[in-house]
């Protein structure tokens, strides 16, 4: 159903470079056209193991498309993507299914499965990898939910949760498979400032405790400053500037300053 190889089966382990040594994630000259428009026009980005990089940029600039390339939901027209030591640029579905056990993603709208309970949502990714006795599975679900500050909601359906709770359940689902790389698509969008702060602290806390490599896509600058070790500004399909939160704050570049200060004139967006 997604834009990837159609073999569907699970082949042998992904071939390619051995893990370790290099960056956890590296994109080189990644280009993608959608509907005739160049959404990504040569993205270069490296993320070191254990690092949290925040990708910021205006709405529709291709941040979510960038994440979908990292996790194999889209394939680039040009360029190369390396993930955990493997060149995943032309990975087949089977090869992706092997590697995805080491990658998690929190979607913008949480993307919880409506027909399953919260507990089943959290356990689903684990179930396809190994069969656990019911008691162990319940303990795992309770542990992962507790890590995101939720208790006694495993039996509820996602429809009965608030937006913030859904995001936290999505986070619990993503960490249930114990990934090495975690991707966040607009984790604080649509949340009130207090809940956004809760999510930001969770991201930071998980990164510190579990040593995860994280890529966070957002246009919420408070979130970017709080969770990011580095921030990359995506503009017109390219990484326009990368730096620490302080460097971005102090940037003299009018485009970056305009974005981080929220001034529409400097971005040419007034019209």
């Amino acid at each position: 159903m997604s834009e990837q190889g159609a073999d569907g089966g699970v082949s042998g382990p992904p071939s390619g470079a051995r893990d370790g040594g290099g960056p956890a994630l590296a994109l080189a000259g990644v280009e993608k056209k959608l509907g005739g428009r160049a959404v990504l026009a040569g993205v270069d980005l490296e993320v070191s193991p254990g690092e949290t990089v925040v990708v910021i940029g205006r709405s529709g600039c291709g941040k979510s498309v960038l994440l979908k390339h990292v996790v194999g939901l889209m394939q680039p027209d040009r360029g190369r993507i390396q993930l955990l030591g493997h060149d995943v640029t032309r990975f087949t579905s089977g090869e992706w299914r092997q590697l995805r056990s080491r990658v998690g993603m929190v979607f913008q709208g949480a993307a919880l499965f409506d027909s399953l309970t919260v507990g089943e949502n959290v356990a689903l990714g684990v179930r396809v990898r190994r069969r656990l006795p019911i008691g162990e599975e319940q303990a795992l679900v309770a542990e992962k939910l507790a890590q995101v500050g939720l208790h006694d909601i495993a039996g509820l359906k996602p429809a009965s949760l608030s937006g913030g709770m859904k995001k936290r359940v999505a986070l619990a689902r993503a960490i249930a498979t114990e990934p090495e790389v975690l991707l966040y698509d607009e984790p604080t969008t649509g949340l009130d400032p207090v809940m956004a702060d809760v999510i930001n602290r969770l991201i930071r806390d998980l990164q510190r405790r579990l040593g995860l490599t994280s890529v966070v896509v957002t246009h919420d600058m408070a979130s970017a400053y709080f969770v990011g070790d580095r921030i990359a500004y995506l503009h017109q399909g390219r990484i326009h500037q990368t730096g620490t939160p302080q460097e971005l704050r102090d940037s003299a570049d009018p485009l970056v300053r305009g974005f981080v200060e929220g001034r529409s004139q400097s971005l040419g967006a007034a019209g």
Partner: protein
Amino acid sequence: MADENRRPFLEEFPPEEILTETAKTGLAWVGRTILAFFTHTGRIGILFARALGALPALRLHGRQVVDQMSAIGVGSVPLVVIVALFTGAVAAVQAAYQLEGVVPLRYLGAVIMRSVLIELGPVLTALVVGGRVGASIAAEIGTMKVTEQIDALEVLAIDPVRYLVMPRLVAAVIMLPVMTVFADAVAILGGFGVATFSFDQSPHTYTQALKQFFHLKDLTSGLMKAGFFGAIIGLMGCYYGSVTEGGAEGVGLATTRAVVASCVLVLVGDYVLANLLFRVSF
């Protein structure tokens, strides 16, 4: 500012070129339609092949199959009962009218039974269940697509074809024949009601005709057709759900397309199968 790349409106062409331009526009439409037809057909074929390829994993997804069988079968029972009951009743009235003076009315039960087993039972059940279930499958998968739940499955290393499409397809192929047997029985009962209450036929006469003219092939052929229709309904719902684009409007469009495609293909498939199963050589 005028768009220089804009294609001129038809009335902006000189009169002598209007016919040529109309033909070009028409040809372009025909070309697009043919291309879209083959694109959809190819994609449906690939989806079907992938669903068949996922069949070895059936045991692992037993719960989803049972859930879908319940949704398709149990959920459709009231609708199927009403449709089948009145289909049988109408068949009795129409048959009596058409047979009057041609065939003795004691054969009424046989006419109703054979038309129900061969044609009315499988086709009407498929159209009714197809409308309800095809729409439901397309809406569910379409909503999952636009809310990124399908992407979430992929990221969790779960094949959406194996997890979503195959169980629905298997459930539809199993449940359509089951629902058809049910519909056949209710329709024959509806005919029995009309025959006994409206035409004063004795129950014995009606059941004798049923026994005398029952051919196992009528039943098995009808059930084969029902299984085939189940595959069409499941596949159309899953396919149009999986290609949903946009938000609520896209889901609505996918639902409509799934139902229309199911109904058309059920009728076309019925004709093809009728030729294969009941061809009479003169």
